[in-house]
């Protein structure tokens, strides 16, 4: 029992690490600002699938690492992702029962929440504002959600992460 539990934990860690790699992998200049929020998507999936194992605490730790990776203020993504995880865990039963399109919309709201908190903090410390294109990654993330969901779910089943 103990063995399988830790085994599952490694799979969760690996998927989150993969998401971080996708977040820092160099892209052409024209695509950099369209990069979807891979870490957010992965975190949302695990919060929905295993809310008793992945929740606010994991969101916080993952967010801190993301802060270091992206050079933002320490705690910026941590705050945003823990809030995302909180909402996600709070509503997981409901979101799981939603039809696909409604789930996508919920994911969009969660991704926008992440970006919004990051933007708020940026504005609070006096960084300049962005154009509307700032929100495109959330939109792209929404359309990627069914794919991410299917892939992560097959991973979860294959390694029977409980």
């Amino acid at each position, binding site marked *: 029992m103990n063995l399988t539990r830790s085994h599952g934990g490694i799979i969760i860690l690996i998927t989150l690490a993969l998401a971080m*790699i996708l977040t820092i992998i160099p892209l052409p200049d024209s695509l950099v600002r369209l990069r979807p929020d891979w870490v957010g998507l992965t975190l949302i999936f695990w919060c929905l699938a295993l809310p008793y194992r992945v929740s606010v605490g994991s969101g*916080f730790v993952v967010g801190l690492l993301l802060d270091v990776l992206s*050079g*933002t203020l320490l705690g910026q993504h941590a705050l945003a992702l823990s809030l995302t995880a909180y909402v996600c865990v709070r509503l997981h039963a409901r979101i799981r029962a939603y039809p696909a399109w409604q789930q996508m919309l919920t994911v969009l709201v969660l991704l926008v929440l992440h970006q919004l908190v990051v933007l708020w903090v940026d504005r609070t410390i006096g960084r300049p504002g962005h154009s509307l294109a700032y929100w495109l990654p959330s939109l792209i993330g929404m359309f990627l959600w069914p794919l991410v969901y299917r892939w992560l779910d097959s991973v979860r089943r294959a390694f029977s992460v409980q």
Partner: protein
Amino acid sequence: MGVVLLSIALMTIDHRQHHLDSMRGALSVVVYPLQLLVDLPGNTVDWFRESLATRRQLQEENFSLRKQQLVLNTQLQKLETLEAENRHLRALLDSSFQVGERPMLIAALLSVDMDPYRHQIEINKGSLDNLFDGQPLLDSRGVMGQLIHVGPFTSTAMLITDPAHAIPVQINRNGLRTIALGTGKFDQLELPNIPNNADIQVGDLLVSSGLGGRFPPGYPVAEVVEIEQDPGRAFSQVLAQPRAQLDRSREVLLVWPEQIEHPSMQDASEPPVEEAP
């Protein structure tokens, strides 16, 4: 909701003071393997290109490098004479100003992307190589930026074009002092508060003035490319283009201030010097 309070506290401390540098350093070690992994493909391609280069290519490169070195050496001779003359004149004037040799270190960029709305880069040297917070970063053409977070193996640098960055500069031609602000575009710096009647021309070279004590004086920063004078406004709008290839350089130079000697350049037994710039 303790987490929320904790993150807000963290952000406040990180923004106001520098107590969290050790924490950020520790976290940067955790993510270092990920960064290395992402950096790997580019590195491997470079390595293959080098090891598969033909003899002729190498000869050609060697030849052009030799030629370049000859030219540079010739210019250096002139510089030495000028420096000696300058020192002599300064001595006559009893001036304490000196342009001296500085210890330098070459670091390579990690090819990882960071926040797209911040102009930051990650380099592969850290506090183990005695880098420090606020250390200036150059490339072969000019000033690139300064270090803002130093971890054990990697460091984060803010480029001079980041909207939150400002560097004190002066016009090389007449010594007019001003400040160059980042605009968020890789090819643009803005010089605010230049009066309409100031002596500034398109093509003027801006060098670091050394005021503020962060950047060494006399390094090229940018070139004035556009001056818009509107009589209705108090100041003219001046734009400059950075000299350094901010979005292209793969190797960067790190400079130490003169008074702090770089230990690895002397005997290795000496303990590392950790001082604020």
